[in-house]
């Protein structure tokens, strides 16, 4: 990712002094920012005043968490840096869940927060919070600007750090007096980060070792994480897989790196991955991990993860290497650069026995559910959404069972198609992220597959969808439970459904109250029609699907077990 060439001019042609707020606006322009999500407040008044002339770039959410998730959804779906702006104290605190979500999934977001006057900092002033302190562990970098002369430089640094290396959220805290202060003379805009040098090119010897291991392998698997998507390296990944003839499994965040219609696709691995992906990983002799971090939801019991495999790990973050599993061949650098080199060195191998074994697993353990049930099975709804959108929608999710069913039953075709909180598992992510994704992709169909629990966490953002004519389609898998927790209670806590039975509002009526369209589906036969109708409806729509309340997500690797010890549930 290239540093911006264009720089803001903090002084106009007449040499007039500019305020910090003006520098703020101009620096955003220089960074090419076309959308800001946020919420105003006391100490950001000078900045909002400066934005008055360009409000078409601003999206007012109804809660700062919604703004942070929207910026995240915008970033994930467009590949650009998401920008969010909030006031001090409570405004900034409300961003934290959103920043932590972006941090865990390495999403480039820059958050600007107002701060009380520098002279009041530390005095427990009105709406004061130690925001750089609070956000330190959920951002890649954060900084409090104490002098207006540093503002432009720090902002450029924030964008640079957010989008390069392993991307992530950056927070810039701007005190009221800094945005009010006038700067005489040219602002300092030169990025100065002596400690920040992401390693982008892979070591050629390591790349060669990786290629040799791949070429020598009889039962290889490529394991793809979100890093491939963040690096815009999906095309190269596809090239490598097809040239070397290697099956590919992905994490939740890696979905879409490979078209799932491909013969090489093993689909998702891990706790709720496919049996054929998990068995392949457990049996492979070479695991080539790209932009993935061996998270516990993916590996299951680490001691028995991929026990027969030599492990190659390609990652831009050196601290990801050998953090969870011992890596045999580490290659640190940008996934795109390294995959490009690997494609050149890879040889095509038949691997007939391996593909026959995989075909056997696919035949024996296909993904499925009770297709004959008279109830509305949530998996059926997801399949119908996929068909009705021809597999071309951008799909966001909340977190829980509906998220896993979406990951399992939508056929992912392209990168940046699924927008889901993987690492942090943030309920309430779906709707605001859909708003952000829709804003960044005006012509595309954006669907939020949500849960009745998740949706309730941030449903106020429906008014943002309505206000900004963001025609997101919310499909609620309403099962009357906090389903994933209920599933664990059913399986591991003797069906004691402690605090997981929930009563929801009439979502359709609620949607109408917001000025959106609301629909309820209680019969299986109405599912497809309702989806079609929602897609044909202008503006945001909420469809409340009353699904089978006690349906479970299968297969499942119980926590702490190994991937091959997965339970198939009623599928087996």
């Amino acid at each position, binding site marked *: 990712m290239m540093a911006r060439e264009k720089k803001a001019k903090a002084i106009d042609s007449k040499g007039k002094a500019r305020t910090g707020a003006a520098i703020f606006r101009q620096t955003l322009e220089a960074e090419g920012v076309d959308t800001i999500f946020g919420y105003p407040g006391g100490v950001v008044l000078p900045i909002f005043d400066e934005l008055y002339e360009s409000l078409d770039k601003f999206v007012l959410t109804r809660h700062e968490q919604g703004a942070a998730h929207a910026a995240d959804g915008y970033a994930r779906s467009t590949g650009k840096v998401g920008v969010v702006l909030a006031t001090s104290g409570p405004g900034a605190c409300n961003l934290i869940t959103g920043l932590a979500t972006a941090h865990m999934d390495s999403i480039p977001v820059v958050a600007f927060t107002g701060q009380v006057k520098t002279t009041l900092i530390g005095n427990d002033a009105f709406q004061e919070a130690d925001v*750089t*302190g609070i956000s*330190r*562990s959920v951002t*890649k*970098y*954060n*900084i*409090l600007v*104490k002098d207006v002369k540093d503002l432009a430089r720090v902002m450029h640094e924030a964008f640079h*750090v957010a989008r390069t290396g392993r991307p992530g959220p950056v927070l810039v805290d701007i005190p009221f007096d800094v945005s009010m202060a006038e700067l005489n003379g040219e602002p300092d805009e030169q990025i100065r*980060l*002596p*400690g*920040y040098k992401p390693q982008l090119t892979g070591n050629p010897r390591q790349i060669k070792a990786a290629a040799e291991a791949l070429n020598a392998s009889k039962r290889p698997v490529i394991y793809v994480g979100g890093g491939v998507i963040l690096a815009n390296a999906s095309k190269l990944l596809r090239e490598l897989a097809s040239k070397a003839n290697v099956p590919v499994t992905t994490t939740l965040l890696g979905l879409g790196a490979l078209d799932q219609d491909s013969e090489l696709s093993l689909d998702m691995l891990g706790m709720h991955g496919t049996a054929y992906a998990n068995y392949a990983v457990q049996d492979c002799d070479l695991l080539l991990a790209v932009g993935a971090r061996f998270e516990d939801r993916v590996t299951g019991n680490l001691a028995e993860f991929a026990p027969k495999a030599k492990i190659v790990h390609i990652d831009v*973050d*050196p*601290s990801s*290497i*050998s*953090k969870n599993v011992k890596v045999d061949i580490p290659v640190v650098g940008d996934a795109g650069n390294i995959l490009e080199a690997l494609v050149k060195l890879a040889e095509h191998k038949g691997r007939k026995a391996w593909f026959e074994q995989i075909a056997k697993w696919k035949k024996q353990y296909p993904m499925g559910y009770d297709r004959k049930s008279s109830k509305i099975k949530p998996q059926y709804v997801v399949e119908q959404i996929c068909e009705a959108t021809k597999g071309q929608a951008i799909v966001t999710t909340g977190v829980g069972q509906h998220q896993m069913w979406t990951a399992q039953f939508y056929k992912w075709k392209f990168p940046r198609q699924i927008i889901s909180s993987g690492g942090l598992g943030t309920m309430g992510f779906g709707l605001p992220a859909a708003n952000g994704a829709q804003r960044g992709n005006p012509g595309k169909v954006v669907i939020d597959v949500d849960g009745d629990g998740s949706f309730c966490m941030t449903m106020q953002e429906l008014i943002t969808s309505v206000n900004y004519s963001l025609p997101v389609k919310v499909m609620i898998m309403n099962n009357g439970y906090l389903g994933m927790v209920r599933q664990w209670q059913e399986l591991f806590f003797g069906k004691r459904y402690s605090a997981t039975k929930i009563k929801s509002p009439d979502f359709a009526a609620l949607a109408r109250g917001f000025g959106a369209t609301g629909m309820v589906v209680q019969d299986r036969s109405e599912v497809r029609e309702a989806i079609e109708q929602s897609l044909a409806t202008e503006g945001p729509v909420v469809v409340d699907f009353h699904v089978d309340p006690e349906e479970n997500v299968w297969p499942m690797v119980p926590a702490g077990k190994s991937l091959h010890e997965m339970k198939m549930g009623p599928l087996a």
Partner: protein
Amino acid sequence: MRHIISALVQNEPGVLAHVAGMFAARGFNIDSLVVGETESPEQSRMTIVVRGDDRVLEQVRKQLAKVVAVIKVRDFSGVAHVERDLMLVRLSVPAERRGPVLDLINIFRGRVVDVSPKSILVQLTGPEDKIEAFIECCRPYGIKELARTGVIAMTRGAKEKE
């Protein structure tokens, strides 16, 4: 195993909090952490004594290097180096019993930097084990107060290429 890690960092507000926060968040155990300006006012050096096996230490080094304000990280394990800790210790020894204590201070090449009728204040520098040996030797005389800087370290020989 005990490791001395040295981190060259940007001399900016919040860097110490960032590094200390990272150690706490990742569950690394710090024995001591020392920060001071270097020859350049724009840079500070942090010297951190941390315990853990090789895997933990590899993570410590990498996570430290990942902090944006950290410029360079090095681990002194297996490298010829000099390490020093500075201690001030107040011993409660009345004037008539000072003789043996002063001998002890001489043996350890310490210095008496303040005296009062009932106590003396001793300054001692050296590697941690020397300081700790001195503390043990002093205990019978009564330690009233003790403060240590924690370890700073540097490699032996010419400055290595950065």
